[in-house]
């Protein structure tokens, strides 16, 4: 298979983004992701934005909040545990970030939404919020649960 340079970069960046999807609750490991993409750490963020239209930090934050929405819909975990599961150490930071992105607090979201019986990749892709995200909340880090 012959790829243009642009297509090859896309493909390598997609591998890196898939790794972010799998390890969303872990610290954002830019050097490690850059290695997956065969780029320098300094090139990674710029290239990610060029390919996917947002920074890795923003993508990770949306991924974490999407996972939190899923856990709130499908489990009875306390909100504090949900926050930890998706990579936040501070409940306050999680709740503020969640409310800013989703438009309502986690507990209110849970009360309004039940489990969705469709393949989880569609739920993940279609419920991932697009609103702007701050870097501060994404800097909350913790090793976490299995990817979905």
């Amino acid at each position, binding site marked *: *298979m*012959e*790829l*243009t340079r*642009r*297509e*090859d970069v*896309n*493909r390598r*960046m*997609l*591998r890196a*983004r*898939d790794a972010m*999807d*799998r390890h969303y609750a872990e610290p954002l490991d830019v050097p490690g992701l850059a290695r997956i993409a065969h780029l320098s750490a300094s090139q990674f963020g710029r290239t990610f934005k060029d*390919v*996917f239209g947002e920074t890795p930090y923003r993508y990770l934050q949306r991924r974490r909040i999407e996972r939190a929405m899923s856990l709130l819909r*499908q489990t009875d975990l306390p909100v504090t545990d949900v926050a930890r599961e998706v990579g936040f150490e501070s409940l306050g930071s999680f709740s503020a970030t969640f409310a800013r992105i989703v438009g309502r607090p986690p507990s209110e979201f849970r009360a309004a939404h039940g*489990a969705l*019986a*469709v*393949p*989880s*990749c569609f739920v993940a892709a279609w419920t991932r919020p697009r609103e702007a995200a701050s870097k501060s909340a994404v800097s909350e880090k913790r090793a976490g649960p*299995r*990817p*979905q």
Partner: protein
Amino acid sequence: MNHITSLHIRSVPVLDQDEALDFYTTHLGFEPRDDVDLGFMRWLTIGIPGQDTSLLLELVGGPQHDPATAAQVRELVTKGALGGTFLLSDDVHATYAALRDARVEITQEPVEQPYGTDIGIRDPFGNHVRISQPAAG
């Protein structure tokens, strides 16, 4: 009444038909079906043994697309932004182990869902493939 009876063929955009054929038959259990040089295109289909529905491994480009459009489609494929294929397995953990050992790109290890257990992989071009084992009962 529309008289439609089944899903027959679904196209999957690929960037190399030989590589696609090898991937889907070697790793995912598809069987080759039609492989016909029509002159203007190679009509290449595969399917799961015992099932009528086929996937058309359709090369991006050719007369159907102007060069700029073909480049856009290739761009989307390599970004993983075009659709996906959903398969069922009767032992998704074994499927996962085989794909992992074959060093296929895994996007998701087995995860229990309300509807069953599923995994995610990518084909060589970036297309997403989801494999599920429905929950018993």
